[in-house]
């Protein structure tokens, strides 16, 4: 796989895209948010240092989803009134992009999906059911959250969106869905809950004493 190389327009550090379709990355050195305009980079902002958090996953963590291997290339840290969670941007070895979420060590893998007639945020309530891919999904929780920080490579441009609504849905067969209301058009992600052991993660963070 070709890995586009460029330099940070802010500090000049070398930027390597591990995922060739990345739209955005964050300079590891000066924390500038860089948007790719193939392959000249444009600085659109700067993120504060990520607050210490407790996800055992980090950039370059490797794992397995079914028979596909993946590597973690980026993340978004969200915050809501009961804490925070990480959406790790992962690159599958077949070149597709997916998300590995870690909410208090509860893991799920999901892929961007398309479905017609996604409901507007105001019309969704807990317990409501939707059918996608002929699976009945039930709304389990609606979370207003905001970006707390970004790191690494992301498949879209990060803007300074303040409050975003997320709707989590589950099925009786362990499937998982998220409706993301970051954009005017709702985005649907479909996936499933994962056991930590099944992800076969390598390159994890270490925790002192554990």
């Amino acid at each position, binding site marked *: 796989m070709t890995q586009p190389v460029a330099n940070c327009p802010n500090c000049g550090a070398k930027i390597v895209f591990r995922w060739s379709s990345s739209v955005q990355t964050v300079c590891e050195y000066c924390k500038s948010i860089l948007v790719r305009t193939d392959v000249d980079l444009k600085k659109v902002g700067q993120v504060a240092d990520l607050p210490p*958090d*407790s996800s055992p996953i980090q950039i370059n963590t490797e794992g397995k989803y079914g028979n596909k291997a993946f590597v973690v290339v980026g993340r978004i840290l969200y915050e809501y009134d*009961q*804490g925070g969670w990480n959406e790790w941007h992962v690159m599958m070895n077949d070149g597709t992009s997916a998300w590995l979420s870690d909410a208090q*060590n509860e893991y799920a893998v999901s892929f961007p999906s398309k479905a017609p007639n996604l409901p507007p945020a105001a019309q969704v309530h*807990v317990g409501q059911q939707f059918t996608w891919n002929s699976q009945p999904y039930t709304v*389990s929780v609606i979370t207003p959250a905001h970006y707390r920080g970004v790191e690494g490579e992301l498949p879209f441009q990060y803007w300074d969106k303040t409050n975003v609504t997320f709707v989590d849905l589950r099925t009786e067969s362990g499937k998982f869905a998220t409706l993301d209301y970051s954009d005017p058009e709702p985005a649907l992600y479909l996936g499933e809950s994962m056991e*930590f052991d099944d992800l076969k993660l390598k390159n*994890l963070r270490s925790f*002192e004493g554990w």
Partner: protein
Amino acid sequence: MSAGVPPLSGPPRPQAKGLNCPKCGAAIVLRSFGQAVTVVCASCHCVLDAKDPNLAILQQFEAITHDVKPLIPLGTRGKLRGTDFEVVGFQRRHCKIEGITYSWHEYILFNPFKGIRYLSEYNGHWNDISICKTLPNVDRAFLNSPASSAGYLGESYRHFQTADANTDFVLGEFPWQVRVGEHAVVTDFVHPPRILSSEKMANEVTWSIGEYMYGREIWECFKLPGTPPEPTGVFANQPSPVTANVTAIWVTFAAFAVFLLVLMATFDMRAKKEPVLQQTYQYNRADAKSEASFVSDEFALGGGTSTVQVKTYAPVNNHWIYLNYALINLDTGQAWDFGREVSYYHGYDSDGSWTEGKQTDSVVIPSVPAGHYYLRVEPEIDPSLPRIAYTVDVIRDVPVFGIYGIAFVALLLPALLISWRAYTFERSRWSESDHPPMQLSGSSEDDD
């Protein structure tokens, strides 16, 4: 490359953070790193905001009962079903049912990779609890009325109890905004040894799945000193001591019973049931004294060693006769002695008519070799009977059924015993539920 700016990647290395309670100054240790949302000061019981670097005080509660001490101290590590966990939080909750307060304890366990796990303890009964990753399947009517069952991962759970749980004591760290006075509607469904629970708070419903654990297992996991408290009573999802499947036992029993019947039928069909002697004898008291005993005609018993049936018929009517028999082998002189009584009485009393005995008698002598035989008969007759004619039948090779009866009872008894034990255990279990069994035994305890 700009100097002086620490690289962003290369994660911060969290460790147990040392902080102080803003209220009383006691040291606070955060064990679950970033996962703690609230932490409770062990010395002054302030509920603190663990997300705030200054640990803002969220609530101060009076620990009315200072004696609430976790059986597993905070900070203890143990291996639970293969994963290391550290006890980071503890809460006591209670519910009131028919005016009685029931209290139980919950422990919050943490592993930085596997996350949060819970242990609950009530009267020495433990449960290992985790949050459901899959949505249980419940009749939606359950939200208003207790549903009779819930499905989870292909298994059916029966509704056990719905109660209001109130938190009245907290200690340590919690991955949610815990408060004393926190209130939830807890609905339990059971499929021993598992328990499926829903906790409904203001805006969310959380499902958890628990598995029953014995105190000694907990003590082993956490290497605790001493012995665990003895469990009292039967807990909602406690596995029955009757490990065998009662239905399977009855299926096996039925199979054996059918086998016995087939065996019986086969032996009955194969038995020759060959009549070898039928003779009618006259008894006359007038000349009885001269001849107390007599012998029958000679008869041959064929085949191999087999049974011999001796049937006696006497038309007695409120009398008795007693016959001393001897079956004697002509060739070897071997004899089988046996006495048989034929008596038949009937009459009326205050309860109506009654009868006792009958006019026929039958006996089977086992294992009689083939050969030539005769019967010696010595009758004793009711003194009030002047004369009577009685008939003796000898039949070779008849089936014996008594052994099947013994086998049947021998199989039935353990099946009954096991069923009874299982039944009484389930009765104790369900008597604590919202669906107590009927007070009178014998009826079904609940509809399935």
